[in-house]
């Protein structure tokens, strides 16, 4: 027999070489090639139990049944033999069986426990040192008693080392969980030949098993030698549940009665139920014997609850006192078995003792079969094993730095909760894990708090593990767990999944090219600078035609690739800054400022302007602005206004350069308006001084072809924002700061400049009707003309005409700041547009069909409203097709 199919019968040279001959085409193998030199190592210590663990020579195949399946029924003889042979201590325990029955209860088993040779392989399961020491082979009665008392004392003080090894729980839970995973007694029952006493005992230990399922009477197979001493061991393992039994029935001297009592009192503990469900048939051969053998005793002890017969009971009594919680707080992992146990198991336990009708018996058998099937593998892992794995899994999930490694989830949750940071991250993980891992909260008594507490402590530990992970990877400890939890790859596949696309990172190379490109550009510029002293101005004055080609603009600001990489740099800078902000560190935005390349003379067009050509560049702007000081914002904006003509969005929104706008371009314009225009407006209205507004306006007027900019919607919007803000500040004068005469004169100067640039071209700010119609058709796709009845509602809700209010707003603010002669010029120039608008408005109502009347009225009012925005500034109002004085 062997574990995991390991061939323990030593090297079978003949057979192996024969096989490999076949594989290698008959070529004989060189011994040195095949032998890896394992035998040259010093003989490992503590492997003298290998035969126990791996079996001797029996061939068991590879189809292992880790449940308590039929194989264990089938192999009682073999296991019995093995049991006798393999270990001195068991043998001694077994042979002393009869005597055991006579000595006071509990002690012989203690002796056995102490003699256990299959020392817990704690190291296999945890990193804790092994706590249990090898005991002398034979211990005197006094020694045993002393040890027991010591143990009790330790336990009383909550200092049992194993407890610490197991898990750090608050003291009450310690007691409650103690019985479930005695750390010193790991799960050894995998070895099939140990079906006998050792396994029995171990299972008891691990699960707190003390109750034994009812053996079907017919399956009894007598086994005289070991039968009598089993139950004492059982008791000796003193799982809490058992203590509880002790409470009820006091101490029972003979092993079999213990069982009998349990059978007759199925109502006691969840623990009992649990245990009975964990390893029933593994135990059953023994149990059966016990029953048959001691059946008279069973009869005797069936009368329940005898008072304590045995003088030696401090042990049991004591623990009764210390573990009150046993009854009320079953750990959560029991809950799986609970519902089932309450019903079926209990009944089935009682039944065999009664006289059953044929039918009942059959039914019971069916049920038993089902139960067996369900429970076949329950208990293969101890709760402790599960906890270990839970902890291991958690350690893969939790991180010390959630905002870094779990960014999306963390921020998403915060956004969902409306900016409120809720529970701590660890608590959250504990809760989530508890909810999703199949642990039912709190088990039978819904002790959710207990379960959560436990899980939180697990998370706490897992975080520690996660912290240590980097160093640990180097050590072998990681590899030592391989096989326990499947293959553990050091590269953490789950964190860094294999990539489908391998993009070579030629960072150095590309750096070289860009830098050389920059050099080229710089050289060119220098050449230009030498030849013409005012190159910058000249360059800017020749913008318009060259700016039509977006790629040309990009090229002149470093190239598309460069700009895109710049945007990514900006993003990473912003993300970095935001992370700093979250962690409460001081913020250094100089890196960000560098990345923006504002006023970078190395480029013909500032890269910042090109950044704004891309949607993602526009979208990041609000977050950039957050990290900039006022001075920097001002610089940014003056750069922006100086190079406005190069701005992609101005070019695309101008009817002159882009007479056929697409839907995507219109969306881009809208995006720009809603994001960047907003930033400018809020900056101007909240923090800009008058002179600063002037500076921006001057930058705009000086460096750009104003009349071209006014043909674009965005450009017009921007100019409107500037001059209306200036006008507002000027009007605000009476409320506070009075503008100095120099400020006023500079304002007049700049306004004159602006006006001169616009004069005679004012009518050009109105886009031609073809252009407006195109935009209307794009923004309001006409419903299919084949269905004339339906579109009414749609057209009513969506006014399908070009919204020219932005033009009238511009004219209004221009007129507002101008003197009378300015206003007269404006009116002169746009007179046609004014009357055109009025007639258009009147036409709407006249030409519209009756059912379109409300729509037409709305459109007319809208047109008048926009027009009056401008006319009101000069004290005029347009109404019902006429212009009159505003009263």
């Amino acid at each position, binding site marked *: 027999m062997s574990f995991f199919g390991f061939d323990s019968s030593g090297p079978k040279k003949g057979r192996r070489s024969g096989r490999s001959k076949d594989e290698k085409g008959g070529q004989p193998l060189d011994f040195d090639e095949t032998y890896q030199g394992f035998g040259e190592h010093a003989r490992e210590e503590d492997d003298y139990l290998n035969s126990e663990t791996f079996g001797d020579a029996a061939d068991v195949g590879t189809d292992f049944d880790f449940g308590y399946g039929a194989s264990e029924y089938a192999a009682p003889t073999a296991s019995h033999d093995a049991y006798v042979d393999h270990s001195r201590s068991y043998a001694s325990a077994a042979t002393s069986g009869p005597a055991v029955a006579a000595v006071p209860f509990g002690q012989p088993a203690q002796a056995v426990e102490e003699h256990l040779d299959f020392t817990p392989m704690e190291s296999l399961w945890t990193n804790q040192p092994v706590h249990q020491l090898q005991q002398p082979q034979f211990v005197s009665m006094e020694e045993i008693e002393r040890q027991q008392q010591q143990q009790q004392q330790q336990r009383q003080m909550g200092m049992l080392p194993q407890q610490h090894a197991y898990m750090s729980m608050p003291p009450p839970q310690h007691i409650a969980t103690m019985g479930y995973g005695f750390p010193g007694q790991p799960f050894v029952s995998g070895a099939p030949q140990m079906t006998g006493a050792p396994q029995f005992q171990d299972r008891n230990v691990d699960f707190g098993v003390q109750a034994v399922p009812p053996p079907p009477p017919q399956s009894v197979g007598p086994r005289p030698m070991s039968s009598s001493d089993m139950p004492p061991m059982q008791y000796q393992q003193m799982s809490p549940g058992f203590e509880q039994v002790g409470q009820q029935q006091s101490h029972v001297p003979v092993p079999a009665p213990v069982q009998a009592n349990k059978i007759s009192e199925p109502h006691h503990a969840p623990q009992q139920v649990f245990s009975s469900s964990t390893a029933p048939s593994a135990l059953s051969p023994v149990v059966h014997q016990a029953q048959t053998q001691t059946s008279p005793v069973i009869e005797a002890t069936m009368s329940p609850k005898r008072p304590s017969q045995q003088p030696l009971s401090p042990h049991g009594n004591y623990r009764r006192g210390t573990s009150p919680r046993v009854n009320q707080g079953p750990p959560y992992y029991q809950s799986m078995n609970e519902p089932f146990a309450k019903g079926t198991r209990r009944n089935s336990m009682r039944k065999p003792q009664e006289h059953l009708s044929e039918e009942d018996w059959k039914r019971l058998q069916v049920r038993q079969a089902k139960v067996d099937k369900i429970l076949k593998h329950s208990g293969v892992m101890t709760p402790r094993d599960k906890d270990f794995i839970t902890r291991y899994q958690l350690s893969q999930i939790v991180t010390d730095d959630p905002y870094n490694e779990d960014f*999306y989830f963390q921020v998403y949750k915060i956004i969902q909760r409306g900016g409120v940071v809720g529970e701590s991250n660890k608590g959250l993980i504990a809760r989530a894990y508890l909810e999703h891992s199949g642990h039912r909260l709190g088990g039978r008594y819904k002790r959710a708090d207990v379960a959560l507490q436990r899980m939180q402590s697990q998370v706490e530990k897992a975080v520690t593990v996660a912290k240590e992970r980097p160093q640990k990877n180097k050590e072998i400890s990681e590899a030592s767990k391989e096989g326990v939890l499947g293959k553990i790859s050091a590269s953490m596949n789950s964190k860094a999944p294999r990539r489908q696309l391998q993009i070579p990172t030629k960072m150095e190379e590309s750096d070289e090219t860009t830098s050389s490109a920059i050099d080229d550009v710089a050289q060119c510029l220098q050449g230009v600078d030498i030849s013409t002293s005012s190159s910058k101005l000249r360059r800017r004055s020749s913008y318009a035609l060259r700016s039509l080609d977006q790629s040309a603009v990009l090229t002149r600001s470093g190239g598309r690739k460069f700009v895109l990489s710049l945007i990514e740099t900006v993003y990473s800078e912003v993300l970095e800054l935001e992370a700093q902000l979250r962690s409460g560190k001081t913020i250094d935005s100089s890196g960000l400022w560098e990345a923006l390349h504002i006023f970078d003379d190395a480029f013909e067009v500032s890269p910042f302007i090109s950044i704004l050509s891309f949607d993602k560049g526009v*979208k990041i702007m609000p977050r950039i602005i957050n990290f900039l000081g006022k001075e920097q914002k001002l610089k940014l904006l003056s750069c922006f206004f100086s190079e406005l003509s190069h701005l992609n969005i101005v070019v695309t929104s101008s009817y002159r350069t882009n007479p056929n706008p697409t839907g995507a371009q219109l969306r881009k314009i809208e995006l720009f308006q809603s994001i960047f225009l907003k930033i400018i407006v809020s900056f101007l209205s909240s923090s800009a001084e008058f002179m600063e507004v002037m500076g921006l306006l001057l930058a705009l007027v000086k460096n750009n072809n104003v009349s071209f900019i006014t043909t674009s919607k965005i450009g017009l919007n921007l100019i409107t924002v500037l001059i209306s803000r200036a006008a507002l500040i000027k009007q605000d004068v009476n409320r506070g700061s009075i503008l100095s005469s120099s400020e006023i004169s500079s304002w007049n100067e700049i306004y004159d400049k602006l006006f001169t640039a616009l004069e005679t071209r004012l009518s050009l700010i109105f886009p031609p009707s073809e252009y407006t119609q195109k935009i209307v058709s794009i923004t309001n796709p006409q419903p299919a003309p084949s269905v004339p009845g339906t579109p009414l509602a749609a057209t009513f809700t969506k006014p399908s005409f070009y919204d020219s209010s932005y033009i009238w707003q511009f004219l209004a603010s221009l007129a507002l700041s101008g003197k009378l002669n300015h206003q007269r010029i404006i009116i002169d120039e746009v007179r046609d547009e004014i009357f055109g608008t009025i007639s258009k408005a009147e036409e709407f109502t006249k030409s519209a069909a009756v059912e379109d009347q409300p729509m037409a009225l709305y459109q007319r009012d809208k047109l008048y409203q926009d027009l009056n925005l401008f006319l009101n500034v000069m004290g005029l109002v347009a109404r019902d097709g006429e212009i009159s004085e505003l009263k």
Partner: protein
Amino acid sequence: MLFFSFFKTLVDQEVTVELKNDIELKGTLKSVDQFLNLKLDNISCSNESRYPHLSSVRNIFIRGSTVRYVYLDKNMVDINLLQDAARREAMSAKK
């Protein structure tokens, strides 16, 4: 960890999972782990006539490696945040 982090936000949402063997399952995502194994509850199979054996299945555990697609509702995803998260991931990968 980005996908793990992302899928965690979908817990308790209804998703449709297409497996590599063409089975499509719609159900409430109950749990996800670092291997992107999924636990679905209240599942329904979109082509039940082909896979009748799934008609009696209510909840299911799917090994992450067998998933081809997960179909999501658009509203479940915060695209801007996802972009940020992806950039962070790329940043930390570079380091």
